[in-house]
């Protein structure tokens, strides 16, 4: 069953002579449980695509269907609930709330849902992400890599069915990066999640089930490398 359908997705920034076509009629389908790597040169439109799938941006045209629901037909309220429950988005630039501690940032989607925090899961994530001693710290007191890990923790906290990661290892050394990828793959397996990850690292891309190459806002190659 397709968990994600992207149909003719187009995003144009700016007007007139300043126009930038960031995405140009992109279409593809993703099956449940798949691990997809998106690669492409800088400025090719990868982040834009991910934001559109995660429901945090608005497309110029086209559709995104997650679990059979058309994301951009939802009203604001439904969209918010979609963002908090169904997707976990790991941003290229973290987007942590500076006045909340590590722990609070990580549990934010749960708290927004008025649910009780699963303490076990939080502890597990903190341990794997190596943030145990930092849980009461504010983001600005962390290194870039640590901030990245907090945003990963936030995305995984609610065990969403769709995890979208924008260069999650961009700021990490090879040991740390391996651990993070292992964590993402592990939770993907355990919760039968679908993982879409943007990466510049070929070795990481090669671990995926499928690689999508984006060039100038279009899909240049879409290759299944493992079943």
């Amino acid at each position, binding site marked *: 069953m397709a968990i994600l359908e992207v149909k003719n997705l187009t995003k144009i920034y700016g007007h007139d002579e*300043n126009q930038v076509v960031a995405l140009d009629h992109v279409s593809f389908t993703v099956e449940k449980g798949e691990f997809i790597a998106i690669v492409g040169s800088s400025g090719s439109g990868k982040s834009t695509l991910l*934001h559109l799938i*995660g429901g*945090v*941006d*608005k497309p110029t045209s086209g559709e995104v269907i997650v679990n059979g629901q058309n994301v951009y037909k939802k009203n*604001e*309220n439904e969209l*918010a*609930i*979609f*963002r*908090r*429950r169904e997707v976990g*988005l790991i*941003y290229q630039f973290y*987007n*942590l*709330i*500076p*006045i*909340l501690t590590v722990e*609070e940032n990580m549990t*934010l*989607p749960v*708290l*927004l*849902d*008025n649910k009780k925090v699963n303490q076990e899961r939080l502890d597990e994530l903190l341990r794997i992400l190596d943030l145990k001693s930092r849980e009461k710290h504010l983001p*600005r007191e962390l290194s870039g890599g640590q901030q990245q890990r907090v945003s990963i923790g*936030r995305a995984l906290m609610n065990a969403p069915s769709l995890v979208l990661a924008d260069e999650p290892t961009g700021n990490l050394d090879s040991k740390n990066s391996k651990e993070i990828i292992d964590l993402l793959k592990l939770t993907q397996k355990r919760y039968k999640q679908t993982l879409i990850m943007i990466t510049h690292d070929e070795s990481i891309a090669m671990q995926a089930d499928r690689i999508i190459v984006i060039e100038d806002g279009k899909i240049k190659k879409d290759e299944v490398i493992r079943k």
Partner: protein
Amino acid sequence: MKIMNTLTLRYLKANKKRSLLTFLCIMVSVIMMSCVGMAFSSGKAFYKSYIEKTVGDYHYYLFGAEKEVGELIYNDPLVDEYYKSDIFNLSYQDANINVLSGDYAYFQKRNLQDYVLKGRLPVNKYEILVTEGFLKQNQIEKNIGDQIEFDNGNIYTIVGLMSIYKTQDYFFNTYQALTYIDENQPIILYVKDKDVSNRIFDHTEQLENQIKKIRNTDADGVGLVYNSSYLAIQDIFEENSKSSFLNVYKMIYILIGVIGIISIFIIYQAFHLSTSNRIQYLGMLSSVGATPKQKQRSVYFEGFILTMIAIPLGLIISYLGLSMTFLIANQMDLLKNTGVEIHIQISIVYMIAVIVLSFLTVAVALYIPARRISRISIMDALHKNDEVKVKKSKLQLNSFLKKHLHISWQMALKNYKRQGRKSKIIIFSLVLSMCLFITVFSFSKMFLRTVNDNSGISDYNILAYVPLDNVDQINQILDSQDHQSYHFISHNSVKVHINQDYLNYQDEMTDMSIAVIDQKNYEKICQDNDIIPTKNQALIYDTPISIMDDNGEEETYSNLYKKMDKNFIEEIYFEEYDGENIYQRQLENFDSIELLHTEDEWGISYSYEITLLVPIEYYKNNIREDAAITYYIQSDDADSLCDELESVGIETVNIEENSQYARQLVQLVQIFVYGFVSIMVFFTLLNILNMMSASIEKRRKEFAMILSVGMSYKDMTKMIFIESFIYGIKTVIYGFPLCLLIEYIMYQVSPYGHIDFSPSWIAYIISFLIIFLVMILTFKVGLNRFKKQNIIETLKDDM
């Protein structure tokens, strides 16, 4: 939900300065609105009791009321209260004394018991109290219980000794004796109606008709005089009233309106600034799934917290502040002397209006950004792209500027342009601050002028009534003394035949006023107008006059004189009354009439008829010899000058005490008004500070970046200075005409509307300086923070 509230509270804490400014803005707005209202109603209450104490709490009095008129009042169901009094003269072996009489109620109203030194108040018309001074001066060896016979044959029993009683009512007299009212004589009947409203005038009209019937006369003027200040302070005005109270009220309403509008704007602006600062973190929240409702609630929650503290606190502070001020004022000798205290008065309706208005403003101020926040796209919010997008082309500077302007100028211009609509809001806010300041300043100026004019402060402290024949003699006495100045003005009415070709005014026979002024001033007026003084001329100021036509409608004539090449008066008559008949006596016509171009600084011209200023010789030769002229004398030693004038038989009134007292009252009002102006300056500062610091906070990161790529602090300061300068200039360009307009409107409703309008230039200069200074200072302080802080910290700091 809880997490959102925690977040909001933590956000408020994290942005202490911003929260504090928002909070202060609401609070000060509330303080201003409530203070003006409370001060207004307290002042009114104070003035009301002040009038009650000094003039009396009656609504009107009937002068010369005979028994039948009395009966009419005593049996009138509309009358709440009445008391009786009379004043007359008695002489004892040719020594004159003023006697006050009244009934028991009158004694109580005037606290006359306090003046009894020994004995008791009179209880019937055969009993009298006199001053010890009267007994001593006239060497009367009488005591309490003795009888005293006056020159007219009246015999009284002395029942007590009193201190001299001076009234501050319309009669302004000093009394040396007090007796009980004799109801067989016409008396002064003070009346207070039950219905304290405009219906008093209907009632008095009825009374007037009834009195006319009793007296069997059609003549107007039954001797009914309103206590108009007392009525005015209770918002009761005659139709078409020209009371200066009305003007003051109007000015205060305009002031309240201006303050209200500006408070609304400032509260709105404060929230607007604080929410647009939060836009990024609200974007983050929604990127992890906060619903629009949650975000909006968080915005409202912030407003709610701040308002819930700021409004009550503002009310409490205004209450305490005013109470303290009044407490101090009550300790001042001035108020102690009046025996009236000022107390805080709260109009519940007004206060509720203030609270509701503040809440509503906050609600609207929050609703708009809350909606904007939920509409803005998350990606935009994350990138803090909430600024109104300005077309790129607008940011481009032309190549000439690019080549020749220093980079700091270029950056400053771009910064200004980039703000787009926001810069307009900043300027609007600055303009409003300026308007507020100037309105209040202007108001204070006019208010003080009104107070001054109505306070009875005069530039003289002795009035002397000099028979026309004695004028030369008195002038000699006065001229021979140092340290004093004097002038006199006297008016008489005349009937005049005019040549219709000369006036824009249709009436063959008209009333005019003939005025005389002392020689020195007469000569000065002639000199100022290049007129050679002669013995038989008339001078006229070209002031507009208002004349009641047959329908009782007022018509104003200005530019009265078509041409002035010849005397337009054909005949002039003086009306005389010999006790039975009025007959007209023709006066000598003038050789010439001259139009004056200077200002009428002595107020010689009447506003309802043409006033002819004539030389004293003409006056002496033509007007009744027994006419008296009023001298206005300012002397350093009023007491001895009075004695000297009295010794040559001139009647004098020493008003030194009165004017001293009035001066103190004006000083008191000044203290209040200046206090108010200071609050206003503070408020203006606060608003500008709020605007500027918000704009700095928003651009901190940008500044840090500019510094990180190597701009020097000096260039940066320059850049900021230039930007402030652009704002300042723009504010002045828009603010100046607007302020002039507001000032002009205020001037029009003020009692001085018809006089020349002069803007308060000082206020303009002050406000320009304030705007420039505060803008540069806030920028400077912001910059200094960077100096202390390391650049990378600022860059890392997202909010």
